[in-house]
């Protein structure tokens, strides 16, 4: 294998070729970012499933609560499969720190809402569970769209 690091690095033809290659990769990344954007139905459904997760502790009965978690988990798997079939991509890698920040932020809010729902159930304030479920929904729907934008931007900056 030829290691051209040891050859003339400032050769103008090589530099032009390198720039041309990088430009071509940047164009491809732009296309990839567009392809990776979730279909329009994806985040509304994900938000509904998230609201379901958040509201599940409100059921009170442990068996039905875990049955509910299982049902929601199954829906998440089906949703992920549908995304793969639609885009042809499996994108579990997070391209940069801002994407991570958005993901962690959404995760923290959803987990907090699940915890709050549990507390509301234990203290007899079930009427507020609709509010925690709504926060879960609103976190995932606009939050997911924000994630797509940040993901796309970081994907293109990653070169």
């Amino acid at each position, binding site marked *: 294998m030829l290691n051209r690091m040891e050859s003339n*690095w400032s050769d103008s033809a090589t530099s032009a070729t390198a720039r041309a290659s990088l430009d071509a990769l940047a164009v491809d990344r732009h296309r990839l970012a567009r392809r990776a954007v979730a279909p329009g139905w994806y985040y509304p459904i994900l938000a509904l499933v998230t609201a379901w997760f958040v509201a599940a502790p409100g059921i009170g009965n442990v068996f039905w609560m875990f049955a509910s978690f299982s049902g929601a988990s199954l829906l998440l798997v089906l949703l992920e499969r549908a995304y793969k079939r639609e885009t042809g991509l499996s994108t579990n890698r997070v391209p940069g720190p801002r994407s991570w920040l958005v993901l962690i932020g959404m995760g923290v809010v959803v987990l907090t809402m699940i915890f709050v729902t549990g507390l509301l159930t234990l203290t007899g304030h079930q009427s507020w569970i609709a509010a925690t479920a709504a926060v879960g929904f609103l976190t995932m729907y606009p939050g997911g769209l924000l994630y797509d934008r940040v993901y796309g931007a970081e994907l293109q900056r990653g070169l």
Partner: protein
Amino acid sequence: MASKARFDESIHAPTRLRLCAMLRPVDSAEFSALTSTLGVSEANLSKTIRNLVELGYLSTSKHSSPDRNDLRRRTTVSLTSQGRTAFDWHLAALQEIAASAQIAPVPEA
């Protein structure tokens, strides 16, 4: 992104490089998604994938699809860890080469 720079001749050909760059940020991509996104022919992409698999840079898997009513199966392609490293080092080398031209002194007339 790895900081080590190493020019790898085996992935510098345009289709090979673009394919590796396309696969680097994802876990895997389907063959059909790659042909349409890269804008290359199926024959060209098949040959490129085969060569990179032989080098140990790519792996492929085939699975049946409920979308197809024939017996053909979908092909999924992904970079191996060796491929990711090679691409990261090659990309760093390209960036260094491109940057070195930008700071090179203008030769006297």
